[in-house]
């Protein structure tokens, strides 16, 4: 058993980082504590709540169920890569327009899951949207406004030639 750190190289939101981590360090903790990217939230640390969802090589993953060493050489996207307070990303803007958040704790995880949905999945009806969002828990909104935001994004994607 070792607590000896090892060097890993990860690309986060397009920027390459070299980080020194213990094998047991969770990817969520590396993003928050080593890189200072605290947009990725840590809720349950057992893969249930979805707050820590990031994109790992283009598909959503629980960063609390991924080790930082496993991400050596990987491309990671977090909520910080979506936009800025002045220029929100498209998914963030849809959440704002539809009042898709209240306290905001779960929001980064939802934003990243929805980014995966829009890139990699064909959804149509509300049932499919709800099923796709079912791995992310929100205790404020009752989900209706989140579904409204995703519905708009899905329609917008379908309308694109």
């Amino acid at each position, binding site marked *: *058993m*070792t*607590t000896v750190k090892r060097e890993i190289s990860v690309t986060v939101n397009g920027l390459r980082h070299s980080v020194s981590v*213990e*094998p*047991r360090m*969770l990817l969520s*903790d590396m993003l928050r504590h080593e890189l200072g990217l605290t947009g990725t939230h840590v809720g349950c*640390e*057992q*893969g249930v709540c*979805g707050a820590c*969802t990031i994109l790992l090589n283009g*598909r*959503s*993953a*629980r960063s*609390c*169920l*991924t*080790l930082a*060493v*496993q991400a*050596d050489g990987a491309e990671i996207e977090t909520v910080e890569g979506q936009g800025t307070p002045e220029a929100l990303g498209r998914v963030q803007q849809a959440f704002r327009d539809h009042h898709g958040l209240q306290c905001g704790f779960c929001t980064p995880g939802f934003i990243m*899951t929805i980014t*995966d*949905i829009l890139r990699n*999945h064909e959804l149509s009806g509300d049932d499919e949207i709800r*099923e*796709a969002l*079912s*791995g*992310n828990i929100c205790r404020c909104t009752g989900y209706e406004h989140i579904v409204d935001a995703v519905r708009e994004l899905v329609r917008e994607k379908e309308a694109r030639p």
Partner: protein
Amino acid sequence: MKPAAFDYVRAESVAHAAQILAGAGSDGKVIAGGQSLMPMMNFRLVKPSVLVDINAIAGLDHVELNGSRLRIGALVRHFMTACDPIIAQHAPIVTEAMKHVAHLTVRNRGTFCGSVCHADPAAEMPMMTVLLDGRIHAVSTRGMRIIPIGEFFAGSLVTSLEPDELVTTVDLATTGREMGYGFHEFARRHGDYALAAVAVLMRREAGKARDVRIAVMGVGEMPSRVPAAEEVIEGNELCDAAILRATESLRTAISPNSDLNASADYRRHLAGALAGRAIRDAWSRAREAVPA
């Protein structure tokens, strides 16, 4: 909620992984998707001395048809199983069951073989392996052995896999076109672990049900076939009375536990209701075999 310290090795090949596991004594652990293992490590219910990561091993992410068997490699993730055209054609009940597996983000990482090794009594992949006479291909430095599913599960979360063995493939029986199938599950929230589920296969011959298979999960220490219920249907024309008799024998044959999600009585009742629906689906999808 942080794992205990361990050594980490990114295995380059199956042989490399087997070598590391052999050197780890009985404390090594294989990680593929990690969707069950990592929560257990975060809770420190599992504290491996060495974690062998097989995600970088080439060639394990394929589904293949080999004669009358489907071979599912150790890095075939749930989203791949769910939309695999070979599985959809040769074992459509697996495709049907996959609709109930976990949530989108977990499906991106979790693997079929990993779920079978984890041996959760309420997970779909172990149940499909029981239903389809699966075999587990386990590699160690001592060689490769093929474990029939009947000798694999030893209890809830317990298998006969040795600590130095790596599962590279699970193979399953294919089902012919004439084989009808039904799968019904109930969970409190779609994608969560099932309170109960029932899977049924059968074909028709001269108007009678043949080769009937009924499997249950979530209602015992491990997924299992229910021969008592199969025998009620086998060789008979399907009617409401036969379905009622089969669901009653299924309810008698199982011994579910009570937990915070459901009482034993409720699970027993539920399993019978789901069995009735799955039997009807299987019968309605079953086709008469066309004489050669």
